[in-house]
């Protein structure tokens, strides 16, 4: 594919990126709103644009199992899922990272049952937050396209060897047609060299993978897993830097918008970020000293980048898209509060949850949340969380 800008559905752009990444195995099961990604991939294979094995499995549990098998023999492997599908594959999702296999997955975020809903929120991905995968959240179609290459690049790095989930909001992103800059396949080859995995399963070099551990061994394996994830951070940065050098598109683990002189900020993850920027612009015009912080890298959590972004702010209004039931609030707010704990002059955290299962959150809603949140912070009403737009009976 040559360099060009075209209007395309984001799901299809992701499939085109997977094709340009020259994957060897795609294994998937259809689930809304991920379906278009694998449908288009199966077309690309059927038409001979992508030379890969497309393995149409009988469940998401098998989709991840096939990727574990193909990745273990050293093949570049991709899958994609959403919601209930992720819940079904959760068991293997954990094992992929424990076996240190560089599988890449596009995770079209969607709510979990029940009640059954096909629309977007972050409940599914929060379920596997602690699975040892690298998690990145993209904010628009261009970022989604770019991060497929970034994900393989990071996953396959010798010092990392971990699976990567590229999280994108279901429907809000998967089903949107956006103008996307496609890169030349030659440039992709430069950025993403062919995958050569040390210690892949092969009869010439037999080894055992996935052994069982007695209590005296298990702890050490988990420590190694955690170290691997934490140590992936500089590789993530380097991969973004090199992508910027090649394409001019620069990404950071934590991104900020008009924060320099901001007294307080709204913190978001995923596609909330862009709408928030519009609300920030409007509030700025009204004299509010507000800025925006977007978390792009969710795991490993970029603590220092976050501290820098939040430094000197009075309040942080965290907007979550999932609820940790029976806990103190949304998962992102939990994380942010924990990160700031014992920091001197830490900003006050106000926790909002909105946009569950596809309920629209427009610019005006953001403005309301920001102003309401600020008022709550000023009054010290920061206990628990607020479910924005909750209708009473």
């Amino acid at each position, binding site marked *: 594919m040559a360099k060009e800008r075209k209007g395309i559905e984001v799901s299809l752009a992701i499939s085109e990126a997977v094709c340009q990444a020259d994957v*060897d*195995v795609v294994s998937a099961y259809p689930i809304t709103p991920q379906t278009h990604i694998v449908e288009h991939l199966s077309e690309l294979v059927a038409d001979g644009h992508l030379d890969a094995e497309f393995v149409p499995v009988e469940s998401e549990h098998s989709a991840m199992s096939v990727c574990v098998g193909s990745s273990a023999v050293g093949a570049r492997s991709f899958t994609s899922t959403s919601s209930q599908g992720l819940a079904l594959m959760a068991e293997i999702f954990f094992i992929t990272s424990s076996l240190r296999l560089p599988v890449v997955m596009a995770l079209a975020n969607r709510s979990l049952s029940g009640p059954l809903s096909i629309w977007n929120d972050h409940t599914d991905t929060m379920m596997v937050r602690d699975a040892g995968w690298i998690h990145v959240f993209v904010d628009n179609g261009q970022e989604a396209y770019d991060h497929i290459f970034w994900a393989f690049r990071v996953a396959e790095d010798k010092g990392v060897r971990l699976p990567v989930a590229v999280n994108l909001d279901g429907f809000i992103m998967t089903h949107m047609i956006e103008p996307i800059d496609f890169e030349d396949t030659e440039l992709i080859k430069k950025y993403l060299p062919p995958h050569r995995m040390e210690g892949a399963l092969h009869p010439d070099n037999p080894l*055992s993978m996935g052994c069982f551990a*007695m209590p005296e061994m298990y702890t050490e394996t988990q420590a190694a897993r955690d170290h691997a994830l934490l140590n992936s951070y500089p590789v993530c940065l380097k991969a973004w830097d090199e992508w910027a050098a090649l394409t001019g598109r620069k990404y950071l683990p934590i991104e900020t918008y008009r924060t320099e002189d901001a007294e307080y900020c709204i913190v978001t993850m995923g596609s909330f970020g862009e709408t928030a920027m519009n609300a920030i612009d409007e509030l700025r015009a009204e004299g509010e000293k507000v800025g925006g912080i977007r978390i792009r890298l969710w795991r490993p959590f970029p603590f220092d980048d976050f501290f820098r972004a939040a430094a000197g702010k009075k309040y942080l209004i965290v907007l979550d898209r999932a609820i940790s039931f029976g806990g103190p609030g949304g998962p992102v707010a939990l994380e942010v509060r924990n990160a700031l704990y014992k920091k001197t002059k830490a900003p006050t955290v106000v926790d909002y949850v909105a946009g569950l299962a596809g309920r629209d959150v427009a610019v005006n809603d953001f403005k309301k949340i920001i102003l309401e949140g600020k008022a709550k912070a000023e009054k010290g009403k920061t206990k628990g969380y607020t479910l924005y737009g909750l209708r009473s009976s």
Partner: protein
Amino acid sequence: MEKFSVFSSRLVEKAEFFTSGHRACQGCAEALAVRHVLKALGRDTIVAMSTGCMEIISSPLPTTAWKVPWIHVAFENSSAVASGCESGMKAMMRKGKIPKKKINFVGMGGDGATADIGMGQLSGALERGHDMIYVCYDNEAYMNTGIQRSSETPWGASTTTSPAGRKSIGQHTQKKDMPKIAVAHHIPYVATACSSFPFDLMEKVKKASEIEGPAYVHVMSVCPTGWRIPTEEAIKYGRLIVDSCVFPLFEVVNGKYSMTYKPEKILPVAEYIKGQGRFRHLTPQMIEEIQEHTTREYEKILKMCEEG
């Protein structure tokens, strides 16, 4: 080495790919079956193993009993993982990323992993037509976790979750017929085997590896612990289950059934049942019922073999 049984045991591969020093119980016929299966397959083999006895006894970190590449992922998915290994290698060889080579891709699981929790995944893998072999080691219960019933536990057997009691005969349903379920997938090769008949077992596994497409081999693997028999009698009971026709040895090539072993003298089922602790509560009438069921099922298989 076409027919081990016709030639001699000296032709059998001398190298061991499943080595001694593993932690299997004494007299484990499953460990023996694994050893024979690997001898038939040779070193160019990749094994995906389900969680179960064999994974636990063969791979405690930092040791391994496997001399061929081996991967364990979870309880139910060795079929899917093996199909992934096959797909990955196929793509990489086609694209010239690695040199071409004939490799056997093998999924292995116990009866619980195969007939219960992994049934859907096995069905999917067989249906998709991967060039792989699935070997089920059937010891007729979840032995690793303490002898609980599975859908391969035979009628009348007492296990810790189908105990015989005043109001129960033990397991009250018949064994799930996995080989026939495999045949229903229209795959090119299905066979039953037993580690008490090693040449027959090795021939079938060899055949399975030579046939292109999915193959299913159901191996009866006597478990002295679960069957409550003396450890030194595992081989004897393997012969008894086959010679009493409770577990006939046959193969199905492209849908055509044929017997690979016919007992010279069919033993009464009672011969096989007596001495097994899991059946000790059975009354003569119950044993008679098992005999009737066994005869009926064996005749069905014979008829299918005649029809070809």
